[in-house]
């Protein structure tokens, strides 16, 4: 168990590719941190610097009280789970788990105890004699987890460990990883590009974009108060509706479209207005809602039922971005139908029109 501290960590690859641009995070003991961001944003690079698999260009990584910049991966007291599992193909499951312990010169009895214990927790006891190739994807994933657990490390590092599993298994393993992490209480850093996985696993999310941190916070915090348009559009599915607008007298003017009723009291020329699909409510056409944060008149394009709920895709009469609205699964809107929608003031997000930061 340990804290992990990243202080202005930068990574510049050969050819002047700056993959990570000065990232600082304080990870608490026992915390489950998820690094999330689109592909290529530097998540893996950051994780690999913590693991010691990649040199740190500048900055400092501390595990516990120790600066580990120049410490070998094996001596950092971490364990890593890889996307493709990286099991040793020629070794039995037992030896896959035991290999790292043997290399540390641990006594046979202790190795055996730990391997059996991990196998019990992960329910892979009956496969201990098999080679990885004789296992299914989910079982391999468990073995990879087992290899991390037996080490009883200060921290677990996960690099997209569920990406190679099918959807159903992914959900199942996600729950299991969370449960396991909580019961072991081991500090964990988990990398994923899947925002749903990130939301469900994290104690705190770190949203990365092009090597920079966009936001750090509890999943709900990040969801409710995204720090930028990037976070707003990345976290949540379907994504938050973002409307580029400019100040217009006392109201707002949708770019390439109509005027909107809404506040423009932040003293800027350009804004981005954000509303989550579930915060738009359909109201009777022509009714008046003076205290609503935003009121929109839209035309239905398509209704998309997904089971428990449905999504309406609709556009403005005069152009502008297509909007998504979450509605009850009983709603029966027809294409071409006109809808009036309102959102409460506290559900309307305002971002700077230039740098996209929350106002």
């Amino acid at each position, binding site marked *: 168990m340990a804290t992990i501290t990243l202080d202005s960590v930068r990574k510049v690859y050969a050819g002047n590719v700056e993959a990570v641009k000065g990232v600082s995070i304080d990870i608490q003991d026992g915390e489950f941190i998820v690094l999330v961001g689109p592909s290529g944003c530097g998540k893996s690079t950051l994780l690999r610097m913590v693991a010691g698999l990649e040199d740190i260009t500048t900055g400092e990584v501390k595990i516990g009280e120790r600066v580990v910049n120049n410490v070998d*991966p094996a001596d950092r007291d971490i364990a890593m789970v*890889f996307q493709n599992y*990286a099991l*040793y193909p020629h070794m039995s499951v037992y030896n896959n788990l035991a*290999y*790292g312990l043997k290399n540390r010169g641990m006594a046979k009895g202790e190795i055996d105890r730990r391997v059996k214990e991990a196998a019990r927790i992960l329910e892979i006891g009956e496969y201990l004699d098999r080679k990885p*190739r004789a296992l299914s994807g989910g079982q391999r994933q468990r073995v990879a987890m087992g*290899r991390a657990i037996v080490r009883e490390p200060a921290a677990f590092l996960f690099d997209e460990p569920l990406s190679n599993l099918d959807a159903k298994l992914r959900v199942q393993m996600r729950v299991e990883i969370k449960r396991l992490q909580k019961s072991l209480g081991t500090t964990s850093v988990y990398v994923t590009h899947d925002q749903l996985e990130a939301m469900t696993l994290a104690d705190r999310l770190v949203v990365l974009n092009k090597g920079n941190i966009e936001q750090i916070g509890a999943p709900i915090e990040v969801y409710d108060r995204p720090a930028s348009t990037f976070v707003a559009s990345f976290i949540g599915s379907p994504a938050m509706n973002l409307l580029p607008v400019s100040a217009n007298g006392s109201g707002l003017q949708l770019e390439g479209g109509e005027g909107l009723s809404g506040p423009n009291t932040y003293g800027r020329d350009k804004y981005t207005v954000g509303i989550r699909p579930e915060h738009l409510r359909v109201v009777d056409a022509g009714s008046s809602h003076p205290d609503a944060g935003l009121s929109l008149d839209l035309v239905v394009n398509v209704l998309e039922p997904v089971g428990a709920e449905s999504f309406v895709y609709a556009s403005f009469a005069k152009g502008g971005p297509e909007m998504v609205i979450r509605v009850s699964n009983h709603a029966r809107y027809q294409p071409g139908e006109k809808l009036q929608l309102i959102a409460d003031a506290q559900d309307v997000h305002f971002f700077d029109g230039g740098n996209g930061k929350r106002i």
Partner: protein
Amino acid sequence: MKRIKFSDHVILLAGVFFMVAPVALAFLTSTHDAVTIYKSGMQFTFGDQFLQNYETVLTRAGGFTKEVDGLVMLKNSLILGLGFAIGKIIISMLAAYAIVYFRFPFASLCFWVIFCTLLLPLEVRILPSYEIVQGLGMVNTYSGLIVPLIASATGTFFFRQFFLSVPDELLEAARIDGAGPWKFFIDILVPLSKTMIAAIFIIMFVYGWNQYLWPTLITTEESLFTLVRGIKQIMQVWIGAQIPDFNEAMALAILAMLPPVVIVVIFQSWFIKGLVESDK
């Protein structure tokens, strides 16, 4: 699937015939006495001299010095074949390991230099090689016979391609598991290369076994002669004096064929296992 036709069998049988007939003929001929062969050529029947011929070939000391018999030559050939194959595998695996996994100056240049030597067979560099071996006083030694031959561009190339196909994560997992460069090589890379090693071993053993020119240059002492040389020797020594011992030459040729066949048969099952099971 297409039905197998009669003509397919004919073609296959013809193929088998062309492959096997010379060997069978050599074997049958080796069971007769020299006089019969001299009078009526290659024999198509099983003669009565089988045991006698093979015993003679294996145990009678021949040559000028009368200190080399078939068994000694067989031993020499085995030493050359095994030393050649094992040496080549060790050297080329280590070379490929360095090239793929270590960053050192001019690594890729090194590789291409090694690769280019593929274009230069032994025969091209045989005189300088001889000069060096002779200078080092290694003429008429097993090491002189083997060592100069084991640097192998072919082996290095195959192992390099194989190592490149091993996923990087395996190395990283091993690093986190506390395996240093040597442990990673021994515990992970070598076992993973098993089928590759088997394949190269077969090829190199047969190649080493069949070496003729190099042993002829390096070994002048008959106690170091290999089987392949010995066959020639039998013919040379007796020619002129009396009837050439064709029967014994044939018997020796058959004997010379056996070990490579055995090696291929043994390692073939590995080979096929490696092709069928995907390991990575």
